[in-house]
């Protein structure tokens, strides 16, 4: 694109977000804030057992309780099973045969108030036949393991196999080969807003639904499926959303239960989850066990890697095929790999359902970078040089055949290394201090079939007011602002004068949602094209009036005028009115479908263009460890990402900083779930430790811009690769500080103290000082 970027009036500027005023004043409405006349309160009865057959459910006494308006069980449903893919449909919204985890949905009630609804739950009698259960990957894969789903032998849910090049040959020929196993238990979203859904039926058989979502259209379709209604009758409405991080992508049983209760009673129903319900029954991050065998040549080039990943998927498939693949894919984008093998297995266990999370696959990614550090040390090489040698460059193709267009990974590394003083500090810091470097790359969209593209419309009021109509949803990341800034730039109107009609399935057209980091790329491009279409029409009308060539016109400051001659122009409102009177009203349309290989399939054909663009990032973290307590104090974090182009640098920086908190500070130091007999031991905000303001280190965000040729104004995904690279940087920094590689994440004080106390330090303090172990060919 040969545009003069200095001429942008709104794009590329740190403008305050359009949604922030309502949020700062308490006027923004979240799902739990809604209330309607005659609204009922819904509550869900859940399984107390990790695995049990349902013998009988008696709801007689609950139904008889005054104030109870409806009680539903699996018998009231169509028994439909939900799955992200046709081959993963394994989850009923209310269980009819058996329950598979503590928290599985068994029944639901709607009553006049919360106390009555809770009392009614206590009156439902469920007879269970308790079954033996599996709680770990090893238990699930055992020969005689009880089966979570009878049609999946050995509880193997999804398997992904990738084998490119000559892995065995390359490993045999490598100078140094290492095999290491890295593990991490489940982690969690802890989005600020606990799940809540409100459903309101109307007299014509339609149902309106308000709920946190990462794409209203991605909610409406499965909801229509399980309710057996046409999509046009299910209207997922726009609402403020308190964070997603991957945990709001799928239909929730609450959406279905609330809708069904509303349809049965003919009254609005609201279900608000407790924090504990949100943790247990929405989604969690997968537990993971990863083994990387990596071969390196003498100069530090990775010759081959063979990786095995086992994911604890919990009771149902969720986004299983994607979840298995993405840890591998992020790393194959980040590092050149000509010879690579990946064997990923997701297993069912009798635990809550796992989905995608912002730092999905922390064991995998941290393992890759930590192992690179180990091998660099073994070979006496600088860890920065090793990363630079293997880092992705633009124009290359990944192992599974995705062409990488724009790529600023090397620039990210160089800037982070310089700003953090990495080369001066590595190996030269005082005792118990360390520095680490992590690299990552994420996708800007997946092949999502018919739901992969976004459509937008622009309409005008007779006073020149602009409305953008788009299916893009804002979960908190700033997508509303992104749309507004793009439309404002193209049409030459101030952003605060652009009205948004978004994320409402009755009004807005298809959109993939914010799932897969595609909102800016697909939705932003669609809005840009729609605005350009509208502007073209405006220019035609104005050109006639001004006796000018449409190609010579510009739109700016609510005026359309001849370039270089602002006096030869018309007010935008005047042009809109002229168009109306001339019978050619202006209505802009645009759509964008990312160019991906629709033949690519996660399991059956993991090959072809995965995403039209990829973001790349590097983070350096410097830490100080207290050897007595194992506490890690993070002194400094520098995070860089190639986001293509920062449409709003302030918003992009906010994404980086939030990513460091969730990925590095929380994801690598404190966040994990603990279990006993299928019960989550730390489901509450008191027990699960997310970072607080007092925990956070200073963060230096560095925006790297490669101007992607296909992104809107060159923009790609922003921020998510930082969550991953921060985790990797933290892991490597702690190892550098304590002189030992801890391979089980997160790096909690108990593990750090244990490593310091019981084992001789093995991680070298500086490159060049490592021992050559006997697996190095002499």
């Amino acid at each position, binding site marked *: 694109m040969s545009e003069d970027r200095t001429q942008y009036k709104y794009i590329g500027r*740190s403008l*305050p*977000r359009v*949604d*922030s*005023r*309502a*949020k*700062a*004043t*308490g*006027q*923004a*409405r*979240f799902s*739990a*804030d809604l*209330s309607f006349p005659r609204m009922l309160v819904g509550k869900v009865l859940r399984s107390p057992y990790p695995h049990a057959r349902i013998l009988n459910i008696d709801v007689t006494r609950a139904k008889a309780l005054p104030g109870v308006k409806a009680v539903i069980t699996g018998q009231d449903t169509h028994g439909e099973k939900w799955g992200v893919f046709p081959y993963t449909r394994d989850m009923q919204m209310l269980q009819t045969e058996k329950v598979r985890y503590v928290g599985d949905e068994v029944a639901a009630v709607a009553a006049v108030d919360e106390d009555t609804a809770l009392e009614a739950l206590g009156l439902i009698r469920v007879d269970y036949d308790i079954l033996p259960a599996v709680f770990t990957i090893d238990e699930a894969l055992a020969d005689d393991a009880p089966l979570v789903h009878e049609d999946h032998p050995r509880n193997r849910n999804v398997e992904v196999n990738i084998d490119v090049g000559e892995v065995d040959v390359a490993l045999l020929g490598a100078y140094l080969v290492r095999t290491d196993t890295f593990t991490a238990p489940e982690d969690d*979203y*802890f*989005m*600020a*807003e*606990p799940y809540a859904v409100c459903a309101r039926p109307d007299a014509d058989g339609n149902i309106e639904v308000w709920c946190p979502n990462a794409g209203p259209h991605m909610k409406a379709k499965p909801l229509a499926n399980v309710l057996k209604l046409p999509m046009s009758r299910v209207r997922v409405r726009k609402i*403020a*959303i*308190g*964070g997603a*991080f991957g945990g709001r992508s799928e239909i929730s049983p609450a959406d279905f239960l609330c809708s069904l209760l509303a349809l049965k009673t003919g009254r609005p129903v609201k279900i*608000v989850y*407790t*924090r504990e319900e949100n943790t247990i029954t929405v989604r969690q991050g997968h537990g993971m066990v990863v083994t990387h065998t990596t071969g390196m040549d003498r100069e530090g080039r990775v010759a081959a890697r063979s990786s095995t990943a086992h994911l604890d998927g919990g009771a149902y498939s969720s986004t299983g095929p994607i979840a298995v693949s993405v840890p591998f894919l992020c790393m194959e984008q980040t590092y050149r790999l000509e010879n690579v093998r990946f064997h990923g297995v997701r297993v069912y266990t009798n635990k809550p359902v796992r989905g995608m999370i912002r730092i999905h696959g922390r064991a995998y990614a941290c393992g890759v970078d930590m192992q690179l550090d180990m091998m660099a040390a073994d070979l006496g090489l600088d860890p920065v040089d090793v990363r630079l040698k293997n880092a992705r460059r633009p124009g290359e193709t990944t192992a599974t055949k995705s062409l990488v267009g724009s790529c600023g990974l090397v620039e990210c590394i160089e800037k982070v290394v310089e700003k953090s003083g990495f080369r001066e500090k590595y190996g030269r810091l005082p005792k118990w201090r360390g520095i680490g470097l992590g690299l990552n790359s994420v996708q800007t969209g997946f092949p999502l079939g018919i739901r992969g593209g976004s459509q937008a419309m622009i309409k005008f009021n007779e006073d020149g007011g602009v409305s953008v109509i788009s299916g893009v949803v804002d*979960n*908190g*990341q*700033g997508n509303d602002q992104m749309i507004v800034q793009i439309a404002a730039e193209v049409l030459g109107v101030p952003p605060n004068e652009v009205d948004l009609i978004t994320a409402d399935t009755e009004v807005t057209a298809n959109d993939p949602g914010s799932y897969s980091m595609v909102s800016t790329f697909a939705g932003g491009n669609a809005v840009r094209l729609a605005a350009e279409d509208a502007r073209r029409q405006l220019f035609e009308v104005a050109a006639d009036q001004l006796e000018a060539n449409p190609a010579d016109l510009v739109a700016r400051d609510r005026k359309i005028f001849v370039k270089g001659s602002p006096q030869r122009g018309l007010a935008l409102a005047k042009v809109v009115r002229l168009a109306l009177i001339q019978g050619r009203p202006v209505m802009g349309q645009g759509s964008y479908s990312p160019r991906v290989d629709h033949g690519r399939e996660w399991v059956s054909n993991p090959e072809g263009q995965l995403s039209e663009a990829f973001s790349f990032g590097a983070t350096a973290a410097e830490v100080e460890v207290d050897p007595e307590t194992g506490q890690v104090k993070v002194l400094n974090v520098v995070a860089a990402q190639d986001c293509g182009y920062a449409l709003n640098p*302030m*918003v992009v*920086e*906010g994404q980086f*900083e*939030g*990513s*460091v*908190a*969730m990925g590095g*500070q929380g994801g690598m130091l404190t966040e994990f779930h603990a279990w006993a007999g299928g019960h989550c031991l730390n489901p*509450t*905000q*008191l027990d699960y430790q*997310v*970072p*607080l*303001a*007092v925990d*956070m280190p200073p*963060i230096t965000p560095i925006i790297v811009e490669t101007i992607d040729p296909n992104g809107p104004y060159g923009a790609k995904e922003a921020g998510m690769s930082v969550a991953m690279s921060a985790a990797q940087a933290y892991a490597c920094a702690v190892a550098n500080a304590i002189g030992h590689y801890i391979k089980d994440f997160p790096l909690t004080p108990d593990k750090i103290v244990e490593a310091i106390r019981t084992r001789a330090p093995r991680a070298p303090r500086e490159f060049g000082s490592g021992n050559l172990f006997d697996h190095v060919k002499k």
Partner: protein
Amino acid sequence: MPDAVVLDLVVNGESIQVLAPPHLTLLEVLREKLELTGAKEGCGEGACGSCTVLMDGRPIRSCLTLAVEAAGHPITTIEGLATEEGLHPVQEAFIQHGAIQCGFCTPGMILSAKALMDRNPQPAEADIREAIGANICRCTGYAKIVEAISSLSSNREDGHE
């Protein structure tokens, strides 16, 4: 215990009588009886800070405070912060510095910040982090929030950004 009691509340400068069961929390009364939904329930156990309101000018957890305890003590919620002249400076700073992402923690965060500025107009960064140390934000990493509050400090050097 009576089924309901009459509560004499002073909320955002307005005296209000509410008939409510005595076991209701202040958060429940604000949200359900007074339709002031700016205060949020994020955890219900005093850990997240989303339900923070000011009582006698001090930040409290409205989810752990019974409404009867609030009787006679002036309560300020996020809805009571802006005046006819415009937004409160803390609200404006949060907007201008990009300190708001999903917005769920924002009302509580802003009220904690306001209480800090009222008692210490020149807070150091450590004071700010401590003052919002019990308000959990999952989106921002707190950086822009700290920047926003720092910008209001009266000893801040001009041009310091």
